[in-house]
């Protein structure tokens, strides 16, 4: 247990905040207001309500038993499913939507998430009927526009990353990561043969890595070894050399800029060390927002990378997805990419712009998803790129880094900045100064909610105690940056003068901190209909 305990931050949510009898709040709320008290849709349900319309059946209605054997038919009449009207649905979701924070409302200073503006124009593009209504198994010749979008996006992403091989099939970053690591595995199997490859099952991962990294490595049959960071927050080259000397290293997964927001200036040397030891380098592209138009992973010696279209390329987070995690790789690794690949036909017989699905890659790792990927996100990402143009893309990167640097400058008098290096698009602080009086990172985050902001990323990366990772993105104006800085400075003062304000925050939301331990001990993961018709609507299934 020891090693893991050393990394666990005791205030990462496991502790109960002290009981408080007198919550201070400036807002007096009526407790029966409609919107905050909206219940579950099942509580609105009334027998006989209908929310839909269908034309009448226009073919002869054979008896169901004739077309489907009775024992295969549903016999529970979908008991428990709601019966509500259209107005019920609209009111229900409109009300509960008001309980959410969102990018349109304000900044999300979430490090590693790149919560930039989700353009409405991109939404319009994705809804163009000729794309929205296109079936994925329609004939290639009849889907040329759709394939062209994929092809063009591939070109742009290949250029941005400096890596020519690309697949847009993965549906999210972690999926793209899994794809990239499987490609490394396939490459080594092919290069060394199965027997020798079996000796190379170690994947090196920095102690600052995102949790998906080791999880993805595991899926490819690798075991994980952790590389230390230096006191400056960069990859420890000596430790890297030491680990590579074992001869069992298949690869290194890293993020650049790393999860501390620092550019790994030794990246070329890092890649050289790993390559010399027979391994490959995978880059987690989550932090590409600091690099677009400025530096290219391909030039750094990286072999394979994944991108997050829902980060760098602004496709909306949607409350938890959908995402899209393209995988880009060097020429050497191209044969292993998932199939099908979207290519341009070279045949003189085909129309000039004929795009095709090509399955002829015998070394491919295979398919990672049905159909071609999260296509709707590709439309949005291409629209993003074309809207920015070559100047706009570079401008976005410059503005993103400037905003982060501006925040770093504004906060460093009040918060401890553990690393002296200049941050790129995100910056990390700790709660060391504030925790003297008992308020910790979690409490600072919760208090920030009372100032109208979504909290920053907390307790990540794990190597920084009480980490607060802040990434404003380019989508925040100076006034809002100043408001954020002022809010954080005010909280810093509160932490020393009146820590109770933080410990019981947030005070201004519809509900306060939830008892997550109780929720995990006795999980209630769905609504259940009441046991008897007269059962009260209180208790865990109602209220």
């Amino acid at each position, binding site marked *: 247990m020891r090693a*893991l305990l*050393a990394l666990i931050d*005791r205030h990462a949510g496991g502790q*109960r905040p002290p009981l408080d009898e007198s919550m201070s709040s400036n807002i007096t709320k009526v407790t029966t207001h409609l919107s905050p008290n909206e219940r579950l849709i099942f509580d609105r349900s009334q027998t006989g309500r209908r929310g839909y319309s269908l034309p009448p059946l226009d073919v002869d209605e054979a008896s169901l038993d004739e077309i489907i054997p009775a024992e295969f038919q549903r016999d529970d009449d979908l008991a428990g499913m709601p019966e509500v009207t259209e107005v019920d649905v609209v009111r229900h979701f409109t009300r509960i939507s008001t309980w959410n924070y969102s990018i349109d409302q304000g900044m999300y200073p979430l490090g590693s998430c790149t919560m930039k503006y989700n353009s409405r124009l991109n939404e319009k593009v994705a809804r163009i009927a000729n794309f929205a209504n296109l079936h994925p198994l329609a004939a290639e010749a009849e889907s040329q526009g759709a394939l062209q979008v994929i092809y063009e996006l591939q070109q742009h992403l290949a250029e941005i990353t400096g890596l020519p091989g690309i697949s847009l099939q993965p549906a999210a970053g972690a999926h793209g990561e899994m794809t990239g690591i499987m490609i490394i595995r396939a490459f080594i199997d092919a290069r060394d043969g199965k027997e020798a490859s079996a000796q190379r099952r170690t994947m090196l991962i920095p102690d600052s890595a995102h949790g998906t990294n080791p999880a993805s490595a595991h899926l490819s049959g690798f075991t994980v070894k952790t590389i230390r960071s230096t006191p400056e927050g960069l990859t420890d080259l000596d430790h890297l050399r030491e680990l590579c000397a074992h001869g069992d290293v298949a690869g290194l997964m890293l993020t650049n800029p790393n999860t501390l927001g620092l550019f790994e200036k030794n990246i070329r040397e890092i890649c050289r060390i790993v390559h010399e030891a027979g391994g490959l380098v995978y880059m987690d592209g989550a932090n590409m927002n600091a690099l677009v138009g400025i530096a290219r992973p391909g030039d750094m010696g990286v072999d394979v990378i994944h991108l997050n279209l829902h980060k760098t390329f602004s496709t909306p987070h949607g409350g938890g997805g959908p995402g899209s995690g393209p995988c880009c790789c060097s020429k050497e690794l191209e044969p292993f990419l998932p199939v099908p690949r979207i290519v341009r036909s070279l045949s003189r017989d085909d129309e000039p712009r004929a795009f095709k699905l090509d399955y002829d890659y015998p070394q491919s790792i295979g398919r990672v998803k049905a159909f071609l990927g999260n296509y709707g996100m590709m439309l949005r990402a291409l629209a993003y790129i074309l809207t920015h143009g070559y100047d706009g893309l570079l401008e976005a990167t410059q503005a993103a880094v400037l905003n982060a640097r501006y925040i770093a400058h504004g906060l460093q008098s009040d918060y401890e900045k553990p690393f002296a290096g200049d941050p790129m698009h995100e910056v990390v602080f700790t709660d060391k100064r504030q925790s003297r009086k008992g308020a910790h990172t979690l409490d600072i985050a919760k208090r920030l909610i009372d100032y109208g902001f979504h909290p920053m990323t907390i307790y990540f990366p794990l190597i920084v105690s009480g980490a607060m990772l802040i990434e404003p993105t380019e989508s925040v104006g100076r006034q809002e940056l100043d408001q954020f800085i002022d809010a954080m400075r005010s909280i810093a003062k509160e932490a020393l003068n009146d820590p109770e304000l933080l410990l019981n925050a947030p005070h201004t939301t519809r509900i306060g901190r939830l008892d997550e331990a109780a929720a995990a001990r006795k999980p209630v993961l769905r609504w259940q209909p009441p046991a008897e018709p007269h059962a009260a609507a209180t208790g865990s299934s109602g209220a």
Partner: protein
Amino acid sequence: MANVPDNLHYSKDHEWVRVEGDTAVIGITDHAQEQLGDVVYVELPKTGDEFAANDSFGSVESVKAVSEIFTPVAGKVSETNATLNDEPEKVNNDPYGAGWMIKMKMTNPGEVDSLLTAAEYEDFTKAEE
């Protein structure tokens, strides 16, 4: 300040052992449960399972963390604390008593002598901080 009873043996992985004849009663220390936070789930082995010293025999979860638990001594599981299924909070409230996890018939009862004493464990945890 975490509680470190004198009559127990300790491991560097924050487990404790109480010797009852040739049976070892094993759990995690007060220091460990403090670090973990509210325990929400404990995964235990089955009666009859055998382990070598320092093998992982289960895991303990809080809301935001999970940690494997290692047996400080070799042996065969004779009993597990099934009440932890419904009341995992016992690990927090009474880590040395009601929060016990497994009982093992020791393969080599002399093994406990190479574990840490209460004083040694206390020094060890202070050094770690």
